[in-house]
């Protein structure tokens, strides 16, 4: 089950780190970094159903029909 309730232990710090990770990169380098980051996080999550739900949500952030 994909967690969509607040789950970040340090939300502001994590977000700031994400932005800072891109410091000094060109747009192409940033895209490539994002791609690597997604793959690393995908592997950490592992479960295909959770990943599929996350991808669906990213594509269309409206809540799924009940």
């Amino acid at each position, binding site marked *: 089950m994909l967690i969509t309730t607040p789950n970040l232990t340090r939300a502001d710090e994590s977000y700031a780190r994400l932005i800072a990770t891109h410091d000094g990169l060109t747009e192409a380098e940033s*895209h*490539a970094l994002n*791609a*690597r980051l997604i793959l*690393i996080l995908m592997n950490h999550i592992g479960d295909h159903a959770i990943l599929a739900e996350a991808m669906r949500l990213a594509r269309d952030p409206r809540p799924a029909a009940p």
Partner: protein
Amino acid sequence: MKHDVPERYALAFRLYPYARSPDQDARAPVRHRVIVVGGGPVGLATALDLGRRAIPVLLLDDHEGPGLGSRALCFAKRTLEICDRLGAAAPMLEKGVQWNLGKVFRDDRLLYEFNLLPEGGHAMPAFINLQQPWFEKFLHDAILSAQAEGAPIELRGKNRVDAITPDTDHVTLTVMTPDGPYHLEADWLIACDGARSPLRGMMGLGFEGRVFEDNFLIADVKMKADFPTERWFWFEPHFKSGDSALLHKQPDDIWRIDFQLGWNIDRAKELEPARIRARVDAMLGPGVDYELDWCSIYTFQCRRMERFRHGRVLFAGDSAHQVSPFGARGANSGIQDVDNLAWKLALVVQGAAPDSLLDSYDAERVHGAEENILNSTRSTDFITPKTPVSRMFRNAVLDLAETLPFARTVVNSGRLSLPCTYDGSALNGPDHPQMPPRTRPGSPCPDAPLAGGWLLAQLGRGFTLLGIGIEVPPQLTLHGLAVDGLTLDPSPELAARYLGDVPGAVYLIRPDQHVAARWDRFESAALGQALARAIGKE
């Protein structure tokens, strides 16, 4: 008057020269039980399998033997097991190059290597590389041996089918020969006439799917090189001879090199020897002495017919489905079609099974084709990304694969052909939850060593009742079919592959060595029911 059946390609071997048949002088079209059209790997194997099952079969080919060119090249373990059942594997293993190790490079760096070597205790290797004409020649040799033992197989070279008229209980064919046309009738027609299947066209049937916008150059190079016997694949190779490249060893000091050329190319120009040599030189480095043996440019498609059975006409191999070459799923899946079709057609022709058994050929092999198309499409999307974002993710995977093992599982330079499990087939009988998933109904039987031989060598003449640690009768007749019983003691391999958590098991095994049903005891009523189901009588 001399007619012409022109050769569309040069022959590697002239195996079945044209000879006038008495059928050509018959007043009315002669009726045959089964006619196979096409003398490639799939057609030859079909004729061989049917003939060995004592079904009279006539094969028509518009050539007199296999064409030049290494083409299919990689033959997988399951294909070799099927060929062994057909008496053709020994020379293939002797001539073929066995390989297990694959290396994946990016630019000039080794990303990782993989070993295909399966667990021990299998008669056949994971793969051999063997030029397609040799594969066909060895099947033909096995046909000659089978004929000598009385198998009713006939081959007619330079017999080109120009028209067919399907009827409800037979098919009429118009066949062109150097002596002019004649007519034949067949109870059953098997179309093994390749990806451009003229028979499919004559019947107006579709062949839907995806065409990939890329071109690959095959250069077969003859050289004395000390590269190891491994599959080497490069993404974005440092030698710049293509967007990807593949190096594979063949018999006779020949190496298969594939270069990915992209979509907008001048085909004729890319096939000029000087241009090919420039690419090969860049890859091999200076001072390597070689000659070009055979070259070809191919594009590829992933597509299939909606149905493989059309009444009395059955399509098998590339005529029914086509995949990209990544994963060696073309000829290998065609041979699995034959394996699936021959015993079913034999039972139907003998009147032992209803005609509807052939619908399970369609269901099971459409399932197989879907699996192959899915795998081959995914490999192709990885090797030749279609969009900038797809390329970005592909390259991100490659970036990570150098240091992070998880990313190597995502790298896809071809998911190499594995046999299909017919999950959900109407022919499948009862399963047992404590037995290993790998031998569930629908699965191809994994091999195992027996005292003085191999398990698979004992399976496949007809249905087999296999008792492991449970005694089964040595011979049974059920629904008019002879079922061979085979009782074995559980060796470690048999226990791991067939027993799992139970002390003994009884398996009903189909003539194509796939599991039909399994139990933890022998009960003849349950067996009778499962056999009825497996031959389409239920």
